[in-house]
């Protein structure tokens, strides 16, 4: 910091002399807090000359927009806004923020940032002159008049009274360019640079929001609070907007202050990814809406049913002998299989209800030949005895055609059910009300 300029009669002073412990204070000595660390002040040999140096430095290297925050390896360059740049549009940008601030007449401008660091004129000193002592350990003391000149120049620049642009020629290859069309068929090349004021405002707002949430959560831990108070606090927490921020965006490599004193505000951008995403569920809902429900029988259920069928057959037999006892014993297996179709229809109904706003109405499958069949699956009120007969037959056929694999001759391995069996299964489903 100012240690480089501190020549000759340096004078140290403490800004927090009154806060320091007096000899009469008997309490044990504590380490001073960070904010109470006294700032070391030094005075330059020639304050007027030094103030002029600072003003030249500000004009040459302080800008509203900088190349460096986009690519730290680019040659330094940037632009400073002028009052003519103030833009009255609803959009968010440095230019529209400048218009807002000029219209209020508060004298507030847009934050400036250096495009190249100068260790002899560190930004911490400027911050100290502007009234911010946080994080400053030492500073150069200027007489009030000279100091005010520097501060006035900074503020005038921030309000857009000294517009300027420093663009190297030829343009560095690390600076990106976009081509924008003009009305006459020509193009202009532009280099987009982020506004640090916009990023700073966003960062400030999100930090405040985070702090508010943190405070509420702290209050919730207080055991003295009643349940009513806690539910109020929870509601308050629930109503605050939720947002996501990038944990660390590499601006200027590992150290943002290498490329700008304000560059750190760009390191935690807010993420707006709360947009529709094509999910598996959504795709399934659309599939059902267009094609109806595609029922399947889970393999594990078929395997259990196959084991039961094996029991009913004699050794080496392919067909079973069906008496009343076997028919009764078969019902629990059929109930589980029919139950899986009922569950699939239930899931389909739920999906259709969840995505109703995105799906076309009426559902396109209703136009198909078997549309009424699926409608009855989704709406139990539409199920008729005829529908039940048809569905029981379909389920029995599905069991008959179920493939358990392929044998050595390349033939499908099935459960070995014939048409008599499917008739029996369908009859059981209807009489025992399994669907």
């Amino acid at each position: 910091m100012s240690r480089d300029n501190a020549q000759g009669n340096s004078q140290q002073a403490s800004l927090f002399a009154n806060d320091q412990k007096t000899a009469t204070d008997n309490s044990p000595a504590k380490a001073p807090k960070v904010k109470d660390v006294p700032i070391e002040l030094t005075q330059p040999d020639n304050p007027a000359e030094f103030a002029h140096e600072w003003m030249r430095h500000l004009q040459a290297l302080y800008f509203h927009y900088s190349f460096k925050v986009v690519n730290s390896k680019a040659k330094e360059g940037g632009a400073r806004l002028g009052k003519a740049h103030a833009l009255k549009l609803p959009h968010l940008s440095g230019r529209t923020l400048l218009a807002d601030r000029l219209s209020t007449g508060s004298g507030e401008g847009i934050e400036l940032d250096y495009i190249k660091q100068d260790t002899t004129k560190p930004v911490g000193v400027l911050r100290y002159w502007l009234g911010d002592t946080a994080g400053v350990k030492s500073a150069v003391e200027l007489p009030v008049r000279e100091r005010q000149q520097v501060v006035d120049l900074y503020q005038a620049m921030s309000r857009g009274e000294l517009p300027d642009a420093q663009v190297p020629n030829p343009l560095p290859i690390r600076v990106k360019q976009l081509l924008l069309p003009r009305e006459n068929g020509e193009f202009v090349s532009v280099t987009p640079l982020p506004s640090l004021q916009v990023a700073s405002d966003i960062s400030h707002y999100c930090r405040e929001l985070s702090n508010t949430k943190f405070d509420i959560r702290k209050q919730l831990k207080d055991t003295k609070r009643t349940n009513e108070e806690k539910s109020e606090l929870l509601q308050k927490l629930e109503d605050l907007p939720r947002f996501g921020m990038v944990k660390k965006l590499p601006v200027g490599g590992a150290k943002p202050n290498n490329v700008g004193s304000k560059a750190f505000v760009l390191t935690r951008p807010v993420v707006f990814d709360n947009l529709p995403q094509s999910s598996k569920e959504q795709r399934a809902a659309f599939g059902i809406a267009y094609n109806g429900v595609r029922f399947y029988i889970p393999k594990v259920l078929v395997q259990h049913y196959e084991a039961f069928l094996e029991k009913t057959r004699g050794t080496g037999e392919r067909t079973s002998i069906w008496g009343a006892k076997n028919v009764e014993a078969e019902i629990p297996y059929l109930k589980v299989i029919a139950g899986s179709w009922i569950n699939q229809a239930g899931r389909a109904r739920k999906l259709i209800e969840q995505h109703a706003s995105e799906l076309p109405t009426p559902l396109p499958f209703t136009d198909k030949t078997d549309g009424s069949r699926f409608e009855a699956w989704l709406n139990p009120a539409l199920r008729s005895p005829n529908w039940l007969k048809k569905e029981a037959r379909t389920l029995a056929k599905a069991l008959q055609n179920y493939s358990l694999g392929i044998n050595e001759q390349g033939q499908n391995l099935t459960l070995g059910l014939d048409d008599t069996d499917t008739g029996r299964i369908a009859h059981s489903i209807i009489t025992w009300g399994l669907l």
Partner: protein
Amino acid sequence: MTKYLILPHLEVSRANALAAGGIISLVPAMAASLMGTAFSLRTGIIVEGVMLIHHSAELLADKHLDKYSTDQDYWLLSMKGATLFDGIDAAGKPTGNTLGSNASQPNAHMNGHWSIVFKLAPNQAETPDGIIERDAATFLLHGARLAGGQIVDYGAPVVTDEMPGIMGQSTPVEEGKPIAPSVLEKTVHGGFVLTDDTHTLNEPDSTKGRTERLLLAALGRPDKSTHQGPKSEFDSESESEIKTKIAETSRHRWVSPAVLGYGLVSPLSENQGSRENCLHALCEPLIGLVELQSIRQAIKKKINFNDLFWSPTWITDDTFLITQPNHCYEV
């Protein structure tokens, strides 16, 4: 007659999501609009407006819940040396066989799935059937990019002269029969169209700042007080009407900030390093708000789809905006 070229289902890999400092947005409205300009340049077919249809977009990042604030923390998948790479970009010194660590510049990427519709200028020279589709396919096949991301897959381009909601185009619908889906619906099978919502930020008397207004609009949660509505209002209505009303009031609005323009911040000047030897200037992005509306909802609301095309304009000598016909801005 106005024709529309539908480029359906563009799968884009690693597109730029960091179009403005401090904001990561997954809506490449500006990039889509400029793609229309690029199409015009390559094919000679003039594009009057571009409609972007959102299907899906995913930020390339890991995310987890912050234990203190219940907000999400994102860890971006970093890409070192994003565009240019040489000795200067190396942050560390080369040691042994290694070239040294590479400097990483700020970047954020997304994988996206969008459809784009170009509104072609009317009365263009008559072309044989299918030539526009073929040109479009060639244009896409030759390594086209959207928002810097490679287009890795796309559907067959379709040319149509029909757009939903345009007066005089809709065929008469018989009572009780469903409306036949338009060519757009048949081609893209649903999606979300963008509507300019930036004008809602224009509240000069508001106590909230411009940034806060934008963030609240984009992050804000739906107002619960409007969800239930007064019960007496529903008394005389049928169940289906009540359901429709509840669905309408509790509908979540998809709102996102997006770059909708550029404001020049330095005078246009000749520069040796400028692209295509054009005049060069520095600029800053103008961030606006867009609302994403389901195509089917838009058709139900009888929105004229001609109003959803973005077209580029210079509203002043130094302000470039993409606007929709029913949202014009004056300085």
